[in-house]
């Protein structure tokens, strides 16, 4: 006796309008939708987060403004308008002027240049150090990993105010030393994230296969481990930017960051304290600038976290 199988020939004699459902396999290999890449998928998820998009728009607009405005504006950060000192907001000076008649709007724009530069540069440096340090520590493992992690533990228990203030005093108050002070230990968070991701990924089969094919340490790290750990790394870097901007504003607020006549948001807010009662506009606009930027970057960070790692979304 024969096992009944679906034999196309057995139905050949049927009239053409009768056919057996489920026997047509001519389209089995077709892909109905174009395949999406990981980053395309991430963008699709990120795009749906309204707050993150709003944050992105604010940052892009602010970046463009702070690049373009000082070029086209008739005012400079240290030029005085002696006829309008301590003036409130007007058409001529949208954010008013300070006690020396300097245009507050353009000073805030120069402050934005400083804050955004420090934010992006500090994040980039922290990213680079964190990825290399964490990647090596996680990949090499064993005793090297232990020593590298102890060093990180010790560095992270130093009081941050101490070394930041000392670095500022030793290297002088300028943008370079602010960045140096901020990069001294803030890469540690990124390094820890990279290390744990690399330790998790290094036992995967594709890494083993690559190693069997003769790939060296560097190739494995750069080609396989780091790209696959990119999601968490980007998230931790995204939160470094608002931290750096906040720290710069804080240092300038203390009077050891960016020095007069140059303007930073922190030093603008600090300069406005004594005259806060009489000329609140000198305080309000820099504070709005700081808060708006911090909100935007935090929203972008939250959006990126949800988009890059949907498991974390709560």
């Amino acid at each position, binding site marked *: 006796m024969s096992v009944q199988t679906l034999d196309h020939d057995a139905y050949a004699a049927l009239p053409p309008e009768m056919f057996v459902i489920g026997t047509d396999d001519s389209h089995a290999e077709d892909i109905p939708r174009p395949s999406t890449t990981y980053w395309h998928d991430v963008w699709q998820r990120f795009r749906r987060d309204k707050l993150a998009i709003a944050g992105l728009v604010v940052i892009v607009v602010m970046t463009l403004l702070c690049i373009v405005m000082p070029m086209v504006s008739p005012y400079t950060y240290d030029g005085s308008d002696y006829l309008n000192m301590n003036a409130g907001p007007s058409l001529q000076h949208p954010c008013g002027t300070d006690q020396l008649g300097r245009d507050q709007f353009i000073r805030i724009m120069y402050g934005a240049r400083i804050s955004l530069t420090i934010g992006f540069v500090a994040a980039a440096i922290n990213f680079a150090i964190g990825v290399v340090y964490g990647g090596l520590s996680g990949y090499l493992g064993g005793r090297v990993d232990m020593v590298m992690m102890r060093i990180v533990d010790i560095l992270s228990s130093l*009081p941050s*105010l101490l070394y930041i203030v000392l670095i500022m005093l*030793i290297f002088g108050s300028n943008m370079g030393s602010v960045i140096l002070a901020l990069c001294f230990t803030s890469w540690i968070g990124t390094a820890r994230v990279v290390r744990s991701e690399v330790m998790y990924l290094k036992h995967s089969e594709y890494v083993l296969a690559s190693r069997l094919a003769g790939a060296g340490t560097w190739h494995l790290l750069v080609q396989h481990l780091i790209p696959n750990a990119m999601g968490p790394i980007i998230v931790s870097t995204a939160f470094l930017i608002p931290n750096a901007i906040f720290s710069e504003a*804080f240092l300038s607020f203390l009077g050891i960051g960016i020095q007069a006549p140059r303007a930073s948001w922190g030093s603008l807010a600090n300069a406005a304290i004594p005259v806060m009662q009489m000329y609140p506009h000198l305080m309000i606009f820099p504070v709005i600038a700081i*808060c708006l930027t911090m*909100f935007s970057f935090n929203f972008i960070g939250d959006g990126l976290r949800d988009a890059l790692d949907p498991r974390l979304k*709560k």
Partner: protein
Amino acid sequence: MLKYIIKRLLAGALTMVVLITVAFFMMHAMPGGPFSPSEEKNVPKEVLERIAASYGLDQPVWKQYLTYWKNLLHGDLGISYKTVGTVREKIAGHFPYSARVGGLAVVFSLLVGIPMGLIAALYRGKVADFATLALATIGISVPVFVLSLLLSYVFSSKLNWLPTYGLEGWASYILPVVCLSFNPIAYIARQTRSSMLEALEQDYIRTARAKGVSELMVVAKHALKNALTPIITYLGPLVAGLLTGSFVVESRFAIPGLGYYFVRSISDRDYTMIMGIVIFFGFFVVICNLVSDILLAIVDPRVKLANE
């Protein structure tokens, strides 16, 4: 457990040695000094040199470093160069102010942050949840110096409800404590909310509910206990950071605490004060981290196993 504690204590001691060494040499690398002629213009140069020599400041830095260690191991932190009294007395005099404000801020942030996160998690997607998330985002985004300016402007200058400065009476504690705990509240609420949501999805919660345990007990005993472990890890740095004083809040509200005197001693180049406060800070951080790690090992046995 004992082995774990000893291991952590040794690591803490090593941290202190590195901290003292780094701080000492960085401090001496700062331009100027406690008795530099460029700053003390009213005192003749010869007199300044004699004063500096009497403190041993004419010696090479490595020699001063060894002397400092010798004194330190005898429990001697030296005398302040720029103020009256020994460093030990100064720290003992100013620390209580910082500790009182900071301690209240720790208690306040836990009492507000945990219930906020809990309510947000239990009423997920409702108004309370959005309100918590909004407040948490504000707490993380608004810098403490901005907050202290705004609050003192509104409540002290405009409304005249609360005192602007000093620490007299309970009302003067409100603004500094609120400023200090704003950011921790945001962090604790967010963390409690997300770990609570995670805990509520676990199998043992379903088991507990299936057994007929009341919802209150499910939340209080099973979910919350496990959701609080990340808070314990955060508690160590938080206590250390708040109790040792914040420069911004202390200078804004004129509180004579350690945070304020630390920055002042740096600008005064008061070497012995700087080192004394650094050692005190470092010691505090190490101890707080150790205590929170031990607490964590007690609450979560998996941590203990991983460390042994």
